[in-house]
């Protein structure tokens, strides 16, 4: 093992353990992820209701494109056969074999929150715990028998409640920076995937670009990002594919656009790594800075020329790199010990 190098200790009002910082980061990311998956599922289930009965493989292709954009198609294939609304909901909502299912995300968020519950407000903890208890005893059959809409609504509401409570009960400290950083990184990532869904969709042959199905699909994209109303306020006229892409990539004011998220990410990154926006010292800082300047200077024409899918893939890669590098820089951990033995020893201590 190479010798560990530690930065000089900077005395400050509040001190945060590296492990705590990372739990805050992951707690926040997982909650945001659960919300995004819920929205994506909710919108697309509703979208497909309008296309009952037309072309047998239409539904399957639609779900395939969503699984592809989430990079979950391979895993899905090992568990289920052809994709349909039922088994995709099961897979994305409640399957613990899928590490990105809503249930897996909420479990992970709660496990992180549990580790650091002395650090977060009682309200934040109780909201996550409530969501966990709510999901714990659900089955896909039951959700389908009652109302999937209500189910997704409940998850989104808990996520919103959590984020609102964080905003109003958590001190603006280093922990806050990690929470926001995690949330925004996840949000930007999911926006790229929501946009990318459309790349994977094969249009029904009769109708072409600009037809009714195409428009409905772009509308679903906007709703998956909670962006339909904002889009309409911004572009009063009808839904045009390149305008939708432009809005979700370049909007300066919409809180789920890539531009908006990356601006915020860059700001929190500067604080976390204690560096200035002009001269970046770290690899993460330089990656963020480069990504931000792309989003500030490129136009939708440039993006379409390069290819929307390729552009989104590049953004995803940059976001991954930023996340990984921040973890590396703020984490002074030795090699991890084997989990199972660690657990067993933890269990033994009790008087």
């Amino acid at each position, binding site marked *: 093992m190479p010798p560990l190098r530690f930065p000089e200790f900077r005395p400050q009002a509040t001190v945060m353990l590296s492990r705590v910082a990372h739990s805050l980061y992951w707690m926040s990311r997982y909650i945001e992820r659960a919300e995004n998956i819920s929205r994506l599922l909710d919108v697309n289930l509703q979208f497909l209701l309008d296309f009952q009965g037309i072309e047998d493989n239409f539904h399957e292709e639609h779900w395939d494109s969503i699984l592809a954009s989430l990079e979950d198609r391979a895993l899905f294939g090992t568990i289920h056969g052809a994709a349909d609304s039922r088994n995709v909901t099961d897979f994305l909502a409640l399957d613990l074999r899928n590490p990105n299912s809503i249930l897996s995300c909420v479990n992970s968020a709660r496990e992180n929150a549990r580790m650091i*519950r*002395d*650090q977060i407000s009682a309200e934040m903890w109780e909201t996550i715990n409530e969501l966990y208890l709510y999901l714990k005893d659900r089955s896909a059959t039951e959700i389908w028998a009652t109302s999937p809409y209500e189910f997704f609504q409940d998850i989104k509401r808990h996520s919103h409640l959590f984020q609102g409570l964080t905003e109003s009960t958590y001190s603006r400290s280093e922990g806050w920076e990690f929470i926001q950083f995690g949330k925004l990184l996840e949000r930007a990532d999911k926006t790229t995937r929501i946009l990318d869904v459309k790349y994977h969709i094969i249009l029904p042959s009769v109708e072409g670009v600009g037809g009714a199905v195409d428009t409905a699909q772009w509308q679903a994209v906007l709703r998956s990002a909670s962006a339909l109303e904002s889009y309409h306020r911004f572009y009063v006229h009808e839904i045009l594919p390149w305008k939708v892409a432009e809005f979700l990539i370049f909007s300066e004011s919409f809180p789920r656009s890539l531009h908006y998220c990356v601006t915020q990410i860059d700001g929190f990154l500067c604080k976390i790594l204690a560096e200035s926006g002009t001269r970046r010292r770290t690899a993460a800082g330089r990656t963020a800075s480069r990504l931000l300047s792309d989003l500030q200077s490129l136009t939708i024409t440039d993006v379409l020329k390069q290819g929307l899918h390729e552009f989104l893939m590049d953004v995803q890669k940059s976001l991954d790199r930023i996340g990984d590098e921040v973890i590396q820089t703020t984490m*002074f951990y030795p090699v991890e010990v084997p989990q199972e033995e660690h657990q067993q020893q933890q269990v033994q201590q009790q008087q």
Partner: protein
Amino acid sequence: MIGSGGQIRPHYRRLTERLNTLPETDFNSRRAAVDLAFLRRGVTFTVYNDSEGTERIFPFDIIPRIIPASEWKTLEAGLIQRITALNLFLDDIYHKQKILKDKVVPAAQVLSAKHFRREFMNFSVPRDIYVHMCGTDLIRDHDGRYLVLEDNLRCPSGVSYMLENRAAMRRAFPNLFQSYGVRPVAGYADSLLKALRFISPRRTEKPTVVLLTPGVFNSAYFEHSFLARQMGIPIVEGRDLLVSDARVFMRTTAGLMPVDVIYRRIDDDFIDPLVFREDSVLGVPGLVSAYREGNVALANAIGTGVADDKVVYAYVPKMIKYYLDQEPILPNVPTYLATNPSERKFILENIAKLVVKSANEAGGYGMLIGPAANKEEITEFRKKVAANPRNFIAQDPVMLSRSPTWCDGSLEGRHIDLRPYILYGEKITVTPGGLTRVALRKGSLVVNSSQGGGSKDTWVLQGEA
């Protein structure tokens, strides 16, 4: 609750009146609200049956256990006396061993104790305090006398339930509290932090104190994070700490920060793989060297386990006389030592009438309740005791006092014990209250949470009723 003549004891009278006026549906909805609150707040412990752990709430009975002021005064004096003597004993054992030389306690019993740490002979702990926090298990016998069942001097747990139970009861019966004059328990965390700061090697206004937990899989993790939150100190795992030049540091996002005091909830065996169990992944390599150099304080000190060994327990009344020249205020439960040949003979002959306990087990494990055991169990324990007498003691079964408990729709008597919490800092304080554990299974005498036990709020009154 019920006195010897069958009448309701005076300090329970008002509670009974209040409960009688409460419609059953109202009572049930309050019970349900309390349970739900525990679940939502995550006041849970983890039970490990197989590899998967499940979180449970600690079953809670909303009928409180009430202790009038005069009764508490005796308890408090007895507990302070006991922890003072135990602390003097530890100091003696790890230095001059006068009590052994004077043959008040047999040297062989002490030096053979599993938790005796000879590595720490002649090591002086900060402020000469070994036991900073102690949870002593008490029971009341059929005459209403309190007896000490055992001392927990290593990492006693349960104090968070004392505090959370109180919070739950205040929500369920706000008015009753005001009129009853129940003494508050909320000062515990504050006193604990003061006691921890008191032993800081660095004499500064605000030393850095941390709580060292085994981690999130430990069944008491809720308690660790609860106490850390109440005290406003970081909760750390072994991997969050490192030792460099015999100083302990924690890894923060701003670099390495020096640590002065560690409230550790990890056993001695696991605390430093360089000194004790080398396979420990919970501890901090080098921690003991920093401790020896006097650069960091540990609470409780290393090696306190020798004094809660159940064989050594039998000698505590003698210690009190020896060190303090006082009569013990709280007696022990009559105890027979298997190491003593005549007592061993008595144990082996009467095993079916006795309670037999291993010297170092906790949590209600490794014991035999003779009157409730079957033939095989008795034969097995008889063999064990004969083969390894140092590891066993026996006690007369004590009919634990009973307290009315809500069981499936009606009030029934269930056996209870009491664990008050004692803190030893600049002075010794006993929090007025404690954890009353209740054996929820009918007739059962085992109150441990891992074996079907629950708990009650414990009210210590300002007055008598």
